[in-house]
């Protein structure tokens, strides 16, 4: 209602972004594993103002039966934005955007899951974006990956994800909402870093070939950093409880 205004500049004179980050800086990330009681696996991610909760059920019996695959698990995924997650209230009915994102997230996670270990079952991944601040599909993938691990589902590797893009003429990583809206390009990427496997890539905007390559490389590097936070969050949950002084799943990514 009291409308947000377009920022005057997205990069200031000292080359810093509107929230003070350098081009290669991630926003602060907080990861928690095992946050829900009923889900078989769950995780929560806070990244900037993004707050996303993921619950996983499965492997479990599939309904309706005709969806069954004889040689692997079906993976189902729903990405949903809570009505209160955005500036303007979001209608609860699924939007076309949510339907597309559910699909690309599923396709980003499928390469990691050892689906062939669980024939004739379904693995359900529910992603609830409780507050949205740019890059929710990437943040959702990061948390979903943890929730799958928390559910004990075999994976080749954790999938990490981060966007890069171009704002104020500069290639940067991990765009926040304003940078996404008013910037020149957004390039979300999901990666299994050790396997060098890109499992999601999309792009909106306008990038030269050179800018594109730079953005892809920066996004990949950001994925690697996030991959470390993910590992830490799992360790904290499973081998942890030892040194609880420092919140281990929270990382300030600026080096």
């Amino acid at each position, binding site marked *: 209602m009291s*409308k947000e205004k377009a920022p005057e500049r997205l990069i200031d004179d000292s080359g810093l972004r509107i929230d003070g980050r350098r081009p290669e800086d991630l926003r602060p990330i907080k990861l928690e594993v095992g946050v829900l009681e009923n889900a078989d696996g769950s995780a929560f991610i806070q990244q900037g103002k993004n*707050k996303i909760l993921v619950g996983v059920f499965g492997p479990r019996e599939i309904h309706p039966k005709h969806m069954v695959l004889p040689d692997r698990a079906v993976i189902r995924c729903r990405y949903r934005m809570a009505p209160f997650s955005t500036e303007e*209230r979001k209608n609860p009915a699924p939007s076309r955007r949510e339907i597309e994102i559910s699909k690309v997230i599923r396709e980003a996670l499928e390469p990691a899951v050892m689906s062939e270990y669980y024939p004739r079952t379904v693995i359900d991944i529910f992603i609830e974006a409780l507050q949205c601040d740019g890059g929710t599909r990437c943040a959702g993938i990061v948390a979903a990956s943890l929730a799958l691990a928390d559910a004990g589902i075999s994976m080749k590797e954790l999938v990490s994800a981060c966007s890069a893009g171009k704002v104020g003429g500069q290639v940067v990583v991990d765009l926040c909402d304003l940078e996404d809206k008013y910037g020149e390009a957004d390039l979300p990427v999901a990666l299994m870093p050790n396997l060098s496997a890109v499992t999601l890539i999309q792009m909106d905007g306008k990038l030269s070939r050179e800018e594109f390559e730079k953005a892809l490389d920066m996004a990949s590097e950001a994925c690697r950093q996030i991959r470390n936070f993910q590992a830490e969050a799992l360790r904290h949950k499973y081998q942890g409880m030892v040194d609880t002084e420092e919140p281990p799943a929270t990382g300030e990514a600026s080096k």
Partner: protein
Amino acid sequence: MSATPKTSGMAKLERDAVLELASKNRRLDGRALTDYRKIKIETGIIEKANGSAQVTLGKTKVMVGVKVQMGSPFPDTPNEGVQTVNVELTPLAYPTFETGPPGENAIELARIVDRNLRESKAIDVTKLCITPGNKVFVVFVDINVLDHDGNLIDASTYAALAALMTGKFPEYELKDGEVIFKDSFQPLPINNHPVPVTFAKVGKILVADPCLKEEEAMSARLTVGIDKDDFVCAMQKGGIGELDSNEIKAAVETAINKSRELRGIIMEASK
């Protein structure tokens, strides 16, 4: 169409255990019959919402976000803002919750929360009119159930109330009939604090704040909404069993007492 639900997957043994305990006036987790589980209320957790709260009631967890937007009044109440309550039983909250449009359980839950707020006049909707018959504020109360371990009605209503009590909406002025929003916000006009108290009939006894296992063993459910002046403002029986008048009257008495204590907790968290 409403249909008898599938009986839960809970093993008969477990149900028998709940009932056996009930026959001795005892509960699974050792609570007294009118005891609530531990309540935790956090507010202001969703910065983009006009108000928000998360209530944890034992292992049940509910998040509520309130959004205030400009809209049109209903034709028969041109001078009043609009309150609308919506529930999503998010599928990550329980294995059998499904995606898709809200089913009868979500709709009933939304309507009970709505009834508690509306009948107690919790929101002073007359203060939400901008230009009569034309523009008013619409208050969207969106309830997301995140973890289900029973008694969703109470947890949802407490969360809705806490979100509203800590909610804000923009100050504005009218210039030549146009609405100009300022950058400043004012608290939502909250007049009353309805507190529902829900009971499950397990065997021959009523237990307050049932957990999910008790709900699966119960024959009927009764929710009694009590407003800040000890008036009954809403009531709802659920389940395919029955109650008798004396049980209901006793439940009302208990609810009046219990609601004072619960209201205190909610008010404290919503300061």
